[in-house]
């Protein structure tokens, strides 16, 4: 189930990145070609697509464990390492829950606002924060569940 979600998000992230090329390319070429005016919306579209690319990518990166972390502790006993790992995941869960809980307020707050240049509704960008929080919650809970089962294996 969650693996399918991860695959879907991976594909979506790649598509968003490809889509990101469109507005910036339009901007460059319309400026280099004489006689064509650069459309005003390109810069805003590019910025908003970047935000979604970062957020979708961060969900994939969270499940695949590719967010950068610092390894300062020496090699630990497997039991201790597991407990520490559970604590780490729980801390990530706290942040995910914060993004979800207060991100909903953030998106609701902007429901009547529109963007500066193209007059798009702003919630289409703001909603990226609570969505990220929700997906992070799912992936972290899954990770915690896996570690809990692993703990029982270690004991056995």
């Amino acid at each position: 189930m969650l693996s399918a979600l991860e695959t879907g998000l991976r594909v979506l992230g790649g598509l968003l990145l490809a889509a990101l090329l469109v507005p910036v390319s339009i901007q460059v070429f319309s400026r280099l070609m004489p006689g064509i005016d650069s459309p005003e919306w390109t810069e805003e579209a590019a910025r908003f697509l970047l935000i979604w690319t970062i957020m979708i990518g961060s969900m994939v990166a969270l499940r695949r464990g590719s967010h950068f972390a610092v390894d300062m502790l020496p090699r630990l006993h497997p039991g201790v390492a597991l407990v520490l790992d559970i604590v780490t995941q729980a801390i990530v869960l706290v942040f995910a829950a914060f993004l979800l809980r207060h991100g909903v307020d953030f998106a609701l707050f902007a429901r009547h606002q529109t963007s500066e240049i193209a007059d798009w509704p702003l919630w289409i960008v703001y909603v990226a924060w609570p969505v990220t929080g929700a997906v992070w919650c799912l992936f972290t809970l899954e990770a915690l569940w896996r570690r809990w089962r692993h703990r029982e294996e270690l004991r056995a």
Partner: protein
Amino acid sequence: MTPALAIATLLGGFLVLLVLRVPVAVALGVASLPAVMADPRLGPMVVFNESFKSFNSFILLAVPFFLLSANLMNAGGITARLLGLSRSLVGHWPGGLAQVNVLLSVFFAGISGSAAADAASQGRLFIDGQVKEGQSPGFAVAVTAVSSLLSAVIPPSIMMIVWAGVMSVSVGGLFIAGVMPGLVLAASMMLVVHVTALRRGYPTRTRAGWRAVLTSIVLSLPALMTPLIIIGGKVMGWFTATEASVIAVLYSLVLSVAFYRSLGIAALARTLAETAELTAAILLCVGTASVFGWLLAFFQLPQFLLEAATHWQLTPLGAGLFVAGVFLVVGCFLDAIPAIIIVGTLLEPMAMASGLEPLHYALIGIVSLAFGLVTPPYGLCLLIGCSIARIRIGEALRDLLMFLLPCLLVLASIVAWPGLYLWPVRLLGPGGLE
């Protein structure tokens, strides 16, 4: 919340979370939560507003594009052509593949802005081959890691893009300022390879014939055009850094799909997905680091440092050495991007007050933080190299130090004689200094 207590929870909390192996981006966010929730003037919306503001920047767009062009180069066979060129040019020098490794990093750095991408691709290309050539694994890892830091110094550079995004200095000027230090660092690395190879008696290869050299130059000429397009377009004022990055992507796409014909649809889809994930891993911490840095400023840490500096009466030279020292230490423990956003902005008022030029300050900061990519305990490129070679960091440490000492001398010369390195910026004038 009193400022002192707030700053203690921010910095203390962050350090504890780092030790617990919480990802850096998340650790910066979580460490910000107590201050945000406890101070009645703040509240949770600070986290969202500040991270939105930092992401919502046109200049940051250059980051995914320069990552994408680097990944396209690797997937589309451009790197392989440049490898052929480097080998035919310097492969017969003492140190053989190690020399090729450094020179390829120079070419790669001129097209890509990501040191991690450089370390990952060249680690796979070189480490096994260098060991087969008779070099020690530690030496092979050290060369790969140290030469990859050139990607952060030679333009385009993701670190420079972020630096220009958060501080008052132009990306164009910074890009041009990075050329000379990058080339001098590369030369010092090649010198270390030369001396070590002679001392340890590493075998040399035969020189490539003129015909082979010429063929490899012709084959890689289209790829070598990329840095010219990027730098030239910036200098001539044709396009901004972000626009140059998109041109680099389109150009690499055309080269790999149409010219070298080595990129299929499946490989392209994989490259896009991987780049999106890497973009997020790099840029997510821009958001949380901005929140964290904003809070430090809100609780007046920069002013406190500025007063301390006025008290010390630092000269530009003293300030430069101080800044380099701080960034070198911070770089050992923290990723370069959050370090720029937090420490870079923290030290900026102090550096300016001591009479350091903004561009000079930026160059010192970028080069010092680039060393952080290879210094333990947290040196991303060193970790990548070690994991490819399947050795422990300790085994590469001695050779790493051998490379870093001359590089530190180069850094010291950047601090002491900025004129040696900044003349291209002054020469190219307004285009570079806009």
